[in-house]
């Protein structure tokens, strides 16, 4: 049963990566004009809208969960912190890879670090993403150190982990919100259903929602794919926080629409209205309805479904801000070229592949290394003991 499924995915993966490789050749030999549907009237497309906007958003689990465990000291969430940090780190690396496709002069990607313009949101995002990727690498480092038995490096990392986490949370707050601030500069171009002075606030709160949903989603997927035990009680708690965060976001969003007089646009059905409704239905209405129901919230399937809906809803939101909402003012409909889609799909596929490899070769999941810990806390209420983590291990080693 497992083998044919694996082969199926392997085939898809191969096709996607081959198409991506060919698209990459086209991109770098023929230029952006030939390899994308971008134009003077529509300079930002799928690579910015999905790879960068959604990529950074989907990596938000990293700062959400490290803050939960290290700052708020909710130790019971420790068992799921490693896969989450891994996802976040991979996410940011892939965002940088996507930028190497999208930038007209990719070999100058480092320029913002030395050529400053503090008035530019893009400059701030560039710095934050660079620093935060470094922070994530350091947060992820102990997993590698542990594998290589580098005890001294582990102790050093342990000593700086709290400032590191605080720095990571601050950097995330800044650039998650700044991805929304990028669009503050286009009050006349972005459709009123999405343009708001509160864009940075919306982007930040939704990043937290997505961070929580992504943690649930990836715990579920890992339990399926790698046969790891599911931390259900932890995920139920996350689901409870998620529904509150979604509700806060929904109230703010609709209050803002109301105060700006933008609700009137909903009276006219059309392209923008439909996609707005899709975003709200997927990301807010359905998951809130599902998670409010205790039986659904406390079931594996219900939690999984709700988290997938949140992810799809906010992916729609980011695409609406960056693509849907910009089309009317540009006077055209943008749909990505096959090359753009192939490269985006390849980047996503690479993400899954690297995650799988990392799980195989590194101690990402607690079970992999914790038989002793499990017997020690055999009567703990959680399905998996959380004694195994690098910082408790490092001290004992």
């Amino acid at each position, binding site marked *: 049963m497992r083998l044919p499924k694996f082969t199926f995915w392997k085939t898809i993966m191969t096709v996607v990566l081959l198409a991506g490789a060919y698209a990459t050749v086209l991109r770098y030999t023929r230029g952006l004009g030939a390899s994308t549907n971008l134009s003077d009237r529509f300079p930002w497309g799928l690579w910015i809208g999905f790879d960068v906007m959604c990529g950074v958003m989907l990596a938000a689990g990293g700062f959400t969960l490290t*803050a939960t465990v290290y700052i708020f000291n909710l130790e019971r969430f420790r068992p799921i912190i490693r896969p989450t940090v891994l996802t976040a780190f991979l996410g940011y690396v892939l965002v940088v890879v996507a930028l190497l496709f999208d930038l007209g002069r990719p070999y100058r990607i480092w320029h913002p670090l030395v050529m400053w313009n503090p008035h530019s949101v893009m400059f701030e995002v560039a710095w934050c993403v660079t620093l935060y990727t470094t922070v994530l690498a350091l947060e992820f480092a102990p997993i590698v150190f542990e594998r290589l038995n580098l005890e001294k490096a582990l102790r050093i990392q342990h000593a700086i982990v709290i400032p590191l986490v605080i720095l990571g949370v601050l950097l995330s707050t800044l650039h998650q919100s700044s991805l929304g601030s990028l669009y503050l500069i286009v009050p006349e171009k972005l459709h009123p259903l999405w343009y708001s002075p509160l864009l940075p606030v919306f982007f930040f709160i939704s990043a937290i929602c997505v961070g929580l949903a992504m943690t649930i989603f990836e715990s579920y997927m890992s339990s399926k794919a790698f046969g790891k035990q599911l931390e259900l009680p932890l995920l139920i708690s996350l689901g409870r926080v998620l529904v509150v965060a979604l509700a806060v976001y929904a109230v703010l969003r609709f209050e803002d629409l109301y105060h700006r007089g933008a609700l009137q646009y909903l009276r006219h059905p059309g392209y923008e209205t439909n996609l707005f409704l899709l975003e709200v239905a997927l990301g807010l209405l359905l998951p809130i309805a599902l998670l409010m129901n205790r039986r659904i919230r406390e079931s594996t399937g219900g939690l999984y479904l709700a988290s997938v809906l949140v992810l799809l809803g906010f992916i729609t939101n980011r695409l609406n801000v960056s693509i849907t909402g910009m089309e009317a003012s540009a006077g055209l409909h943008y749909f990505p070229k096959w090359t753009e889609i192939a490269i985006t799909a390849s980047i996503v596929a690479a993400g899954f592949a690297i995650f799988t490899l990392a799980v195989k070769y590194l101690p990402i999941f607690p079970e992999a290394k914790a038989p002793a810990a499990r017997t020690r806390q055999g009567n703990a209420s959680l399905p998996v003991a959380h004694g195994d983590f690098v910082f408790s291990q490092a001290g004992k080693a």
Partner: protein
Amino acid sequence: MSKAILYDATVCIGCRLCEKACADRNSLPYDDNVATEQVISAHKLTVVMTNGDKFMRRLCMNCQDPTCASVCPVGALRKTELGPVTYDESRCIGCRYCMLACPFGVPKYEWGKVLPRVRKCDMCADRVAAGRPTACAEACPTGATKFGDRDELIREAKDRIDKAPNQYINHIYGLEEVGGTSVLELSSVPFDLFGLHTPTEPLPMLTYRVLSRLPDIVSLGGVLLGGVWWITHRRAEVAAAEAKERQAKKDNDGNGKQ
């Protein structure tokens, strides 16, 4: 001392010599085909738009407070003292944020090239720095495009409207638009006839308002997060210490009974 271009559409005869002069100055090809193009692009930095018997020039407005310069992450776009907004190709990373942000839709990209540049009119910055007029102003046979001091040109534009109020609409395009621009335009018909928007608020403040709060967010956030960590860990330490005490007491009691 800031320089500007004054374009008076009522004097323009649509000869397109400004287009030709601009192409020559920027080493761009110019032939009959290019002449018919009605939109600015990477290979045509200025256009004389035609609507019936009315004309309107399109070129970079060289804003007083340019949105493009404010959004550029590497400072490739700059407002110079003299007025021109210049583009330093060697800094540009090709993020195209300037194209997204420009309220006039001016910066264009060399989509067909493997190593593309942003292209836009830079108000002949080199010529202006050398004390010469822009190529378009020099080429204009009727004086429809005039180069000079911005303040003087504004006075002149007001004068022209006052002297012939029937000939002009009462609007100097570029005087107030996005906080003022170094290109000023006069017309006998409304500017939106040519698709020219008239946003009056300078846009850079929209993002700088948020950006300027970052130091506050960082310091406040840092203290807040550090504080929360200190409190939650203090609690855990106290709980651990109390548990240890209780254990010690229990052990003592046990010993006492024996």
